[in-house]
């Protein structure tokens, strides 16, 4: 007998080996069968879901992700699909064109999602093109306030002539939790997150053409899909239509807190360091108090542009409907023009006297006074 054979384990008796092989074979068959059962159960459940959606009145309930088509052309990128992608794009400069336009802007418009819903591109483009100025709307949703746009201004060393801020709860000197996670990310992670979300959007768009998302359908949750313009930063908002609700802006007196004032002053100082002047505005909403914005403007010594309009409505209890937004922006731009005209006249006057402008024009105080009373 060869030596190797003595060192090996003794061979199993032929009958035991055959039994073991049979057992292994049958276990393998059982496992294969259970895998197929799982796949079949999943397929059947999805098929039943699809049929229950498409063949019943439930088909009337639409899903934004499946219904909304991405805008044609290359002007827009996906900015929000249950997750704010534009934070990553703008902070990390992931889109070259958007960053170029942001750097070139003479006027930056900052604020929250209420501002973004109000600043529709049609009026803005015609107006600023007429004045030979470039602008960029750098507002954010996701409860974002002053620190994140300030971080972008500092990161890219932006030097616009004017910054218009929607003062609605903007000055708190805080980053949202989401923005904190963005700022802490590194470029590769930011890029991966962006592409991952775009892929997620594409996958869900394909899947939910025929397979329902029962949670959205049952709750009739209002979904938004937002694309952002590379050219001017405005949002193209696509949503399943909702009920329009009228509102009257708050009119009671409301004090500004010392913290808010300190944050606003800090923001103003940052802008001054970039050679930029501040203008406040206040986009109307059911829980927005323009008097508070007026007090803040007066305390900072900056103009407040707030056109008072009646019969405004929101599409979801917070954001202006497209019609209301158009009316607001038209009136806002008219007042902004009037302010700039007065400012230009004042600047000319000052230039004639060869004095460098160091304080805001008188029109500023007049504007704030008008609102305060």
């Amino acid at each position: 007998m060869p030596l190797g054979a003595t060192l090996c384990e003794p061979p199993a008796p032929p009958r035991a080996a055959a039994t073991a092989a049979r057992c292994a074979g049958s276990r393998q068959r059982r496992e294969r069968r259970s895998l197929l059962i799982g796949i079949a159960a999943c397929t059947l459940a999805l098929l039943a879901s699809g049929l229950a959606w498409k063949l019943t009145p439930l088909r009337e309930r639409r899903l934004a992700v499946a219904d909304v088509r991405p805008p044609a052309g290359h002007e827009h990128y996906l900015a929000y699909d249950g997750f704010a992608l534009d934070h990553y794009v703008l902070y990390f400069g992931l889109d070259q064109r958007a960053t170029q336009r942001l750097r070139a802007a003479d006027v930056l418009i900052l604020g929250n999602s209420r501002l973004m819903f109000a600043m529709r591109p049609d009026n803005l483009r015609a107006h600023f093109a007429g004045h030979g100025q470039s602008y960029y709307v750098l507002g954010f949703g996701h409860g974002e306030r002053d620190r994140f746009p300030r971080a972008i201004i500092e990161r890219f060393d932006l030097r616009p002539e004017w910054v218009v801020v929607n003062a609605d709860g903007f000055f708190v000197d805080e980053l949202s939790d989401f923005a904190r996670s963005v700022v802490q990310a590194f470029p590769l992670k930011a890029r991966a997150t962006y592409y991952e979300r775009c892929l997620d959007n594409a996958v869900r768009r394909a899947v939910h053409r025929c397979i329902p998302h029962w949670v959205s359908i049952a709750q009739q949750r209002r979904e938004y899909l937002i694309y952002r313009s590379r050219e001017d930063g405005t949002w193209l908002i696509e949503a399943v239509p909702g009920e329009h609700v009228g509102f009257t802006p708050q009119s009671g007196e409301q004090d500004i807190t010392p913290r808010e004032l300190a944050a606003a002053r800090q923001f103003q100082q940052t802008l001054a360091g970039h050679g930029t002047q501040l203008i406040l505005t206040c986009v109307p909403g059911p829980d927005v108090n323009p008097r508070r914005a007026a007090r803040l403007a007066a305390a900072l010594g900056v103009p407040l542009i707030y056109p008072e309009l009646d019969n405004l409505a929101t599409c979801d209890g917070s954001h202006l409907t497209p019609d209301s937004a158009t009316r607001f922006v038209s009136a806002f731009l008219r007042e902004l023009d009037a302010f700039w005209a007065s400012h230009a006249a004042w600047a000319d006057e000052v230039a004639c006297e060869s004095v460098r402008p160091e304080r805001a024009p008188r029109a500023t105080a007049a504007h704030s006074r008008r609102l305060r009373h």
Partner: protein
Amino acid sequence: MSFISYTFVALFLVVYAGRLLIGRRKTETPYVALLLLASCAFYAWHVPAYLLVLLTSTVIDYFAALWMVRLPERSARRRLLLAASLVANLGMLGFFKYAGFATESIGRVLGLLGLGLPVGTLDVVLPIGISFYTFQSMSYTVDVYRGQLQPTRDFTRFLLYVCFFPQLVAGPIVRARDFLYQFARRRQLSLQTFNAGLYLIVRGYFLKVVCANNIAVCVDRYWDAGWQGALNSPALLLLAILFSFQIFCDFEGYSSIARGLANLLGFRLPLNFNNPYLATSFKNFWQRWHITLSQWLRDYLYLPLGGNRGGRWRTLTNLMIVMLLGGLWHGAAFHFIVWGGIHGAALVVERLLGLERAGAGRPRALRIAWAVVVQFGVLAAWIFFRSPWVSAGTAFIRGILACDLAAPPTEILWAGLFLLPPLLMHLRGLATERGWLPKSGRVEQALAAGVMGAALITCYGPDSAFIYFQF
């Protein structure tokens, strides 16, 4: 990196391809290297620099263990090495996790004493998973010190034990003696292992993405309104129940995915949850909830404190200390300490009443009554766990006890639907434990996985991070 991301899916597919191509026996060096590389990439995805923190902890413990075995068992130098390792680990944990809390608390105390001395606050980003891997790493040196484990000379294996990516961020907390030996053990690819792993993964994703995330929408929306007095008692009670299941689905979901992924990669991770809401005593609850943490606390804290060998009062004190520290482990905030304190106090009372063994030998009615008390006690503790601070938790409980009966908001009732799957899982577990039904077989698991897989596509909730990522 979150399990719920395409980036993670891509990473895992690469590693699994490695398992199929270069790691068919699991013991091949290139495969182990690939696992290590993937684990480092997984961790660095959070904050790359924090990989250094993990490496520091690992290097210290690796060398401490190697030097320890060269020294006589009861020598002072051996003790010194252990102390150095513990100080280094706890120092890092303390700095990153508790320094901000400590400075803030000192500032508050000084303020109360009228000494408005300036105490700076530290705002440090917490290295993800630090509480978990520090405990793992510490358990290794302690086991070597006790002579219960031979240290490994292979640094790669030890590093992989600490940073094995399926369980790196939120456990289960694995012991070195349960993991290191697995490197030498061949585990061939088999359809049986694949199916078992796949089932765990689908189950985990279902619990997290469908149940926890949908419940989270409601809990996040209403919790603050709850303690601020804007909700009635039934709504508050339902909200507390919803949170108790949200955290179960969230954490058990993570653990299940981790175990499934490890299974596919050729490793076994311990069970972390065993139908915790079937617990009939507080002791039993900790045998079912976050099992690996409670075992760690038992072996490395409760027993070294003296366990139950120092008389009754010493035992009770030890129990209380362990639970308070367990609460603090979850986060640097007083409400976590209160959460641990409630559990500690409950364990003490239970032991005083002699009910810790699920009331064995006591009348059936008493056992059932105590089980109900246990569930309400656990629920009350969860309220403090979820609330932003202690007074918010007490306000929430006051709201429940006010008994102003009215129908809860529809959204809270609707979220109650997502309690059904975890409840069914608990009922199935109860039926198995009592012997009413056999353990679930392959076909039952396959059917369940199929349905859960379909639910993942049709009922997923909005994206939200795993709760235990913050610990």
